[in-house]
């Protein structure tokens, strides 16, 4: 009984369900092409003091959001990166959270 249960959770049948969900998700949910937030809003200078500006690009773990997810253009991602790293130095933004 317990053997069956553990297999059911972590084993094959679980994976199968996940695959099905994923497939379904892909078919029904088509994501729109994202635009770079900083280009759209015409923000030239990404300052390290502006925590509110940086916060959307720092997921709860504290890492910097990759641009393939946030859709930020390369130029602005670079500026964002330095801004976040500076903000980390003076404890406005965490290095990590757990």
């Amino acid at each position, binding site marked *: 009984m317990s053997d069956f249960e553990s297999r059911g959770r972590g084993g094959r049948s679980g994976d199968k369900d996940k695959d099905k969900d994923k497939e379904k998700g892909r078919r029904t949910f088509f994501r*729109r092409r994202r635009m770079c937030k900083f280009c759209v809003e015409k923000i030239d*200078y990404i300052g390290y*003091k502006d925590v509110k500006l940086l916060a959307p690009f720092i*997921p709860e773990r504290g890492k910097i*959001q990759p641009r393939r997810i946030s859709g930020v253009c390369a130029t602005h991602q670079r500026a964002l990166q330095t801004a976040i790293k*500076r903000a980390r130095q003076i*404890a406005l933004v965490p*290095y990590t959270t757990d």
Partner: protein
Amino acid sequence: MSQVRQYELIYITPPETSEDALGELHQQVEKVVHQFGGNIEKSENWGRRKLAYEIARHREGVYVFDVINGPAALNAELDRRLRVVDTVIRHMIVRVDEELGVAERSRVRRKSAMTSRRVRRGLPPEPTEQEKSRRQEEDDDLDGPEMGFRERGDR
């Protein structure tokens, strides 16, 4: 020959620091700045703020922010001195003149590009109020959840 550059200095002191101690610290900074022929353009006290992580067993700190104009040697000296001071638990000096210059130039370039584009199309050089409000409405529907910022599990 030393060039004048612009720096931003931020330092954090423990939350229980008295006003007097802060004033003294500010005077110390000012003294060093004047010694090198610089000036403090702006000085702000952000007050008590929560730190994102623990520094020297403090969870909060008093932030002080200064904008300083001065030569490069000033930066080095200030950095060295602040490192020694016990009441400053963290400090950072950032050179900002170049970055702000870049930002300003790109702002100007975009503005002039917009103006010339509009003139070529026979419109007034500045967007009218009507156009501005219309653009606002269009923007609103872009800000929906499908923008996908902060999305999890999307690797």
